[in-house]
């Protein structure tokens, strides 16, 4: 798409903020226009990385599940970890990647809760790897305007 989507969103956000909002009344609607500009700014930031970060994260989670399958003692969970670890993203549509990501992160919750209950060095190492993945997940989602 030309002009580039991020450029269009950047210009639209600027027009909302500096051209349109000052001429809108009452203040509640003016504020809503400003908030809408912020939303456009976030979409602009997300546009380019949206597929890449989901593909990266889904791959990281699958690798974690392959590791986890060798550690967990619950056989039902182990079987599902093996299946999820062997799966792949069949489509690069954001909606499909997101659906897969939701399923993988739901399984991650189960794995995390399960490994917390297990003793032993392998369980602790897996738990550390889960925390590292969770921290990495917030790096992938970081926004320039976020307060933290």
């Amino acid at each position: 798409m030309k002009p580039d989507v991020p450029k269009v969103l950047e210009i639209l956000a600027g027009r909302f903020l500096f051209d349109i909002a000052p001429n809108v009344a009452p203040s509640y609607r003016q504020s809503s226009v400003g908030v809408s500009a912020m939303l456009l700014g976030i979409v602009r930031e997300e546009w380019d990385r949206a597929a890449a970060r989901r593909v990266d994260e889904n791959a990281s989670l699958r690798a974690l599940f392959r590791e986890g399958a060798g550690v967990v003692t619950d056989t039902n969970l182990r079987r599902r970890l093996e299946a999820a670890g062997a799966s792949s993203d069949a489509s690069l549509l954001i909606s499909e990647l997101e659906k897969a990501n939701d399923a993988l992160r739901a399984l991650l919750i189960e794995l995390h809760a399960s490994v917390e209950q297990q003793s032993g060095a392998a369980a602790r190492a897996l738990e550390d790897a889960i925390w590292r993945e969770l921290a990495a997940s917030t790096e992938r989602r970081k926004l320039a305007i976020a307060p933290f």
Partner: protein
Amino acid sequence: MHELAPRIARYAKSRLPQVAELEVADVERIHGGASRETYRLKLRYRDGANAIERRLILRRDPPGSLIETDRAIEFAAYQAFHATSVPVPEALWLENDPSHLDYPFFVMEELSGFDASPQNILMPPYAAHHEKLARQKWSILGEIATADPEKLGLVGVMKPVAPVDAWRRELDHWTGVIDEDELAPQPIMRAAIRFLRRNPPPAPARAHVVHGDYRTGNFLYDKEGNVRGILDWEMAHLGDPLEDLAWSLNRVWCWARDGRVGGLTSKQNAIRIWESASGLRADPEALRWWELFSSVKGQAIWISSGREYQTGKNQDPVLALSGWWLMNAQDRAALETLGKLA
């Protein structure tokens, strides 16, 4: 003329039958609080020989909101703290009958001429007064912590809680909100909730008044660096005073993005001010529990706002922004409290 003006005038006349020439003017919706539609208005009337003009705020229940709260508690909190050292506007009328304005509402005095924006406070002329504002902000919070809910008449209004159960009640409530409203799995919050249940905090000596949403953005300030009004009591309840302190320290309120809590001062200084004003000690481990809890509570609110927007219950863009802007920051805050942020 705003469509609500004649209806508000009819209602005000029923409340003030002795006055004459009553009219409502300049009704304007403003952003204010997360759970109710907020309107600013002027009420004019003649009372005997006197022409009166009052600036008022009307808070009306919306079809959907960030937080489902009890308007009676918010109204009672304003009434309880009015004319105390905790500055609040005077609460005037509480109306639960939806026939007047389609939804229940309450009316209070407007404290006009002050700012509440968490962004404006970072800029001149307010930036020069950050330490003064911080001293007042956390001193007032200390005063709320020392208030006696029974003497304030809040015990019959707010649900009682045994001190030992204060943490569980709050954690159960906000976990339930996440359970009901999440649009996607929340692995960080689920881990945080498990940690909180495994490591409960010590009980407070008694149940205190907890404001529930005490942060920069929910108080009025003036150009001389004075806090002029504490607003948004919609989540007020009885509980552990560390809940309020921890919420005020939440990383997502670091609006200046430089680690200063509430955009105003260091975390250590805020705690010191609060301890000095309240006479209470913020035990570091207990405070850490409540800080992690405040991330769970914050995330529950952002999750709810996202659901409200997505389901069409309330499509105010601020609800979409809350989810996009703050959810990841809240996850990072939880990880930091747990010592797991890379």
